[in-house]
């Protein structure tokens, strides 16, 4: 998996991941403004409609995308999508699309747990993280946990999130409050371990 956002923005792309498929051909998944493009040997072999898929993650036989939008089905939230990946050709088949929690708008980043059973999304606009379950068939379930970040006089804007390879921790960056946060992840729930918020003193301790 490659993160090449800075480079890709110059080219008008939003995100990309790549994987080896079939006869060792490298297949790339490239997010554009309104689609996910499947590319092989520099050629677009499939184009799947999407909405601002700014972060793509491959996990097992599935590709997950987070849609950087402020409104989904009339509600104030972003959304996530899942696609089944054909093992031979790398082609995508849509499996599901799911809205985030209310106010979790403009999500920027998503992480798939190493066991493939959960997604964690960083919602830049809403200042929160969402946890969503994933079934063995790649179906994304309803949000099971929403964690709202309250900054230190600043409005939080979670920007990226990733799993520690053990699957027991999440590392997240927030460009609104200029912090790196660490969460414990256990039984599908995230709990902050890096700091406690002291509201009486208005401090992070």
């Amino acid at each position: 998996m490659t993160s090449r956002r800075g480079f890709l923005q110059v080219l008008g792309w939003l995100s990309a991941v790549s994987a080896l498929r079939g006869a060792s051909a490298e297949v790339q998944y490239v997010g554009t403004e309104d689609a996910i493009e499947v590319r092989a040997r520099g050629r677009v072999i499939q184009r799947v409609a999407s909405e601002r898929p700014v972060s793509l993650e491959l996990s097992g036989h599935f590709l997950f995308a987070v849609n950087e939008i402020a409104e989904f089905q009339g509600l104030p939230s972003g959304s996530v999508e899942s696609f089944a990946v054909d093992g031979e050709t790398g082609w995508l088949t849509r499996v599901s699309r799911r809205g985030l929690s209310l106010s979790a708008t403009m999500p920027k980043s998503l992480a798939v747990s190493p066991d493939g059973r959960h997604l964690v999304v960083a919602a830049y606009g809403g200042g929160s993280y969402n946890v969503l379950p994933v079934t063995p068939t790649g179906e994304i379930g309803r949000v099971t946990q929403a964690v709202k970040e309250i900054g230190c006089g600043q409005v939080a804007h979670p920007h990226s999130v990733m799993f520690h390879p053990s699957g027991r921790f999440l590392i997240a960056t927030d460009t609104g409050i200029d912090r790196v946060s660490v969460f414990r992840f256990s039984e599908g729930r995230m709990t902050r371990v890096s700091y406690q918020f002291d509201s009486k003193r208005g401090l992070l301790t």
Partner: protein
Amino acid sequence: MFASIQEQDPRFSTLKRSRNLRWPVSPSDSPHFIEVCENSEDVVTALQRTVDAGMRPTVRSGGHCYEDFVVNNPGGAILDLSLLKAWPLPGDGDRYRISAGSQLGAAYLELYKRHGVTMPGGSCYTVGAGGHICGGGYGVLSRLFGLTVDWLSAVDIATVEASGKVQLRRVDKTNDPLLFRACRGGGGGNFGVITDYVFDSLPKAPREVVSGGVSFEWATMTEARFVDILLKFGDYFETRGKDEDTWGMFAALGLDHSSGGGFGVSLQFCNPDGTCKDLSVPKEFLDRFQDCGAKPQHSVLRNGRVVALNTTPASACPGEHALARQVWLDATINGSFGDGGSRAKYKSCYMKENFSVSEAKCIYKHMKRTMPGVDLRGSMLAVDSYGGAVNKPALLSETARPQRASVMKLQFQSYWHNPAQDAGRLQWMSDFYTDLYTGENVPASYSGTPYPGKHYEGCYINYPDIDMLKYPFWPQLYYGTGDIYPMLQDVKQKYDPHNIFHHSMSVRPKQEKA
């Protein structure tokens, strides 16, 4: 000390419900905590704890929210204010203080017995003051006295600062004036937790009122007569109803679906001095319907709906009306408790003019519509009189309620019990509404909605309808096309910078730059 109720508590399954039994849709929508607060310190403590835990707070007073804005709060906390009492503070002087947790009926009793005054709020006893007032607070006395928010002088509200700290504020015309304005009609669940409403003065309660009405049978109804009745009702409020001597009259045209047997017009009236010495206004009004095959009807308003007490078989002659005289307090309190929870759906529309003939025909069509397998009894369109004291133009810039030029307010309602009827009921109302607001009175780009213009003035935020969210212009339906919604967004940014208070129809933060 307040009660913090969690899932294992036997009270949880009862208290997690909404009065509209469609919500919550599934158990996973339910909160983790229901915090039953008794005073404003409890509110501050519970809110701070919720925010510190990264959870979402929603706020409940009476539990009458039409949509799922409160009880759909997965993993969050409902702050239940229904036990919150208003404690007079030093410095209150002669001011009136109403707790956000108070039921309207209890507030009317207290204001009347202690002071002889009242609020021009809603007619349902068990509606909570918290959501009702901050959304406008319209009721039977509003033509005479205006909206409840028109009288509001100050609000005590707990907000969450940018630092994350909960702050209890007293807001009024000089302290946090924009937040105060936002609380005067902006609607619930937007900016913080209101704990008290304060009024420097309130109108004197009427001494007595008369109730009366006429009823019509569907069995003998024709389209032409139906159209005639609607146009006569609407014409009155577009013309004669603007005269000040009529402002003491509230009238409702209760159009029940034809599966229900009949429909009727009913009224409550007092003279502007709060007596019933001169009944020429209601008599003149009821005279309009005498050649429509009307039957005089002893009726009373219950829970915002017209209930017939008995019906005299013979058709009345002009000038002969069944007007039942009642002490105002009895008319206001008795029997208006509502009939417990049911499944329900609502929509609304403000009208600045009388119905057109094509609108009346469209209403007739949907009142007569039958749908295979769908029981439409308990479905209705209530057309309420509006205007009078509400329509003083200066109130537009003082409050957050834009509807100041309407003469009627329509409430589409349907009540049922069987979840299997959900889809059919919603379909009937959606088809009806879309059909009615498509055509000559609505520009094509706003088709399907009563978009503010010459004929319509949008919708009432206290009758929220999430079907409107599919239109990007939904804020203009509820808040008008003027400065109110941008003002509310400014208030959101300043007083709830984290957007902690939100639901599907709350004031949205200005679009963030990614």
